[in-house]
């Protein structure tokens, strides 16, 4: 980790010194333990602020659509790099304007999971040899990092950046064993009533702060449908019908676009399980179009292309449903 951090600073220094970029987006030390904070570095004097550790949980690609036109270098984990690819494919950023400082990532630590394990407030945190060490007023704790990763990190299959101009550290072995849709499959097994109950319970926690939307690199709409007043698609209160529409539309709009970085869920102050919806839709897109977003800048998004070979069985022919595939269209 220290080594990676040192190299990030070195590379960033070279980029700024050579005038290749005028902005580095990375992480700095946070004011709270178990956290790191996104930082914008404009000059060489500030390079020592850059850090790298297992708490760099934000997807920095989310800033790229806000600094269009500038020459930017961005620190990117596997998931961040996929978002960058997706943004290039969707024409939101230009490949030549972005320098990707790619970092193979073994996953980020789920701070809430660790916080729940201890009695009292964690005042200091660090890591060493794959372990997270925490300290409070009258306790200490050691946690195996592997067991305390964010849910999206636990099932991540793209730990190595899919694009990078500068790769820091050795590539690591991808995690091919894990079933990334295990949780979705469990959800699919539930009855409609059980699913509705779970959905309602999770979404009922929402306070509509839109942290999920703001943290997401793919939520770059100039005007989000919830903010439109002409026409007004949705009311602004906490009525369950409005919360339902917000969350379903948010997930639908991610169809074939979500890289499952988990940023939405990490940003949510109410700790809502937001990924179960987007993950479900990722699975549908994978099943129907054998497509995963953010892997190749030359491949157009599944929902922006048409091929005569695409599955058509979701189109209502007016006939009685038959065959297995019908089941898949049901939520």
């Amino acid at each position: 980790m220290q080594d990676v951090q040192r190299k990030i600073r070195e590379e960033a220094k070279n980029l700024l010194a050579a005038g290749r970029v005028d902005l580095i987006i990375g992480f700095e030390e946070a004011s709270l333990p178990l956290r790191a904070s996104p930082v914008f570095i404009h000059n060489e004097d500030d390079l020592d602020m850059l850090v790298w550790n297992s708490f760099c949980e934000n997807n920095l690609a989310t800033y790229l659509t806000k600094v269009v036109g500038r020459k930017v270098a961005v620190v990117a984990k596997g998931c961040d790099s996929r978002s960058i690819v997706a943004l290039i494919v969707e024409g939101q950023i230009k490949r030549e304007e972005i320098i990707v400082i790619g970092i193979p990532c073994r996953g980020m630590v789920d701070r809430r999971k660790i916080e729940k394990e201890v009695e009292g407030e964690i005042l200091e945190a660090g890591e060493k040899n794959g372990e997270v060490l925490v300290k409070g007023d009258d306790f200490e704790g050691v946690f195996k990092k592997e067991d305390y990763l964010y849910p999206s990190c636990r099932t991540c299959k793209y730990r190595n950046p899919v694009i990078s101009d500068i790769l820091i550290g050795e590539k690591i072995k991808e995690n091919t064993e894990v079933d990334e849709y295990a949780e979705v499959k469990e959800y699919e097994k539930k009855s409609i009533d059980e699913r509705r109950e779970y959905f309602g319970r999770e979404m009922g926690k929402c306070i509509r702060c839109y942290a999920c939307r703001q943290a997401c690199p793919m939520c770059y709409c100039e005007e989000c449908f919830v903010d439109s007043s002409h026409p007004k698609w949705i009311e602004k209160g906490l009525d369950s019908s409005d919360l339902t529409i917000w969350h379903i539309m948010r997930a639908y709009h991610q169809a074939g676009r979500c890289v499952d970085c988990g940023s939405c869920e990490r940003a949510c102050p109410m700790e809502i399980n937001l990924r179960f919806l987007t993950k479900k839709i990722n699975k549908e897109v994978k099943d129907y179009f054998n497509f995963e977003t953010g892997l190749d800048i030359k491949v157009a998004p599944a929902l922006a292309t048409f091929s005569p070979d695409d599955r058509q069985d979701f189109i209502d022919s007016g006939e009685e449903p038959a065959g297995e595939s019908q089941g898949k269209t049901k939520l």
Partner: protein
Amino acid sequence: MKKISKKGMNEFIQSLMADYIILAPASTDGIFSFKPVSNFEQIDLSYQNSKKPPKEVFFPQSETMFNYKNGKVESTEKVKQKKILLGIRPCDARANILLDKVFAGPDHKDVYYTNKRENTIIIGLGCSKSLSTCFCTSFGGGPFSKEGLDILLMDIGDKYLAQVITDKGREVLNHKFREATREEVRLAEKIKSEAEKRISSRVEIEGIKEKLDRMFEDLFWNKLSQECIGCGTCSYLCPTCHCFDIADEAVNSEGKRVRNWDSCMFPLFTLHTSGHNPRPTGKERMRQRVMHKFNYFVENYKEPACVGCGRCIINCPVNMDIRKVLKEILEV
């Protein structure tokens, strides 16, 4: 000073349920908020603090002001429902005093707010569970501050000491409360002074207002707003933020007028009908949030709109820390 055993507290609260709606800290999947409870078991007074501040009791996130149908208007704010807000922390009680200045000031009284406020008795709970992000003492508060409370409870182990602060508070006390002994009062004093010492985080606010007076056009705001992602977490979880938006939810001539929380961090907040937005980017929005709290509010009400509860620090998705911001302002 009165006292009541913890078991007695259970019975006391249970007995109040006949005449009052009790709003108390209760958890849903580990997230605390102030909810109406129907029995004492649902209450968890060992909580640290609520995620959503108790301001929602007087100023709900979404509130119907009135219904209308074919030109006839029916207010939904007729019933005076007596409530007890139990177990709130002194920082949040202080925040209510700041909200009073806005919603219940001498010039403007908001009927929806004052109706709920006047009909609610607030029983606070002294805070010996402060976090490293707490800085209430920087804003004139304290973990055992009485401001904004009708009764202050102090947990001394097997019982609570109760300090009656207002007549409203005295009314609800019953025979279950006894006079506390001198030892018990001394113990409470000790717990209080230890709690005050625990608040180690401090911010300097002296001179902030005057500094901000001269900073509207400063480049500081460009820098400050860069990493902010523009969500409403800080405003919605702030016990003093009080901006709202009024909307009609209607079909033809039938509907309701609703008041919802709004956040200055949202692009829609100042969007004009013409399409012009005087706060088009994060820079103007971040400046507004800081200015409102530490300059405009001071200008209008003689004190800043922050009580140092630390919610914005803990919950910010990108770890923006208001303590750091205030420090940087003084350094500009």
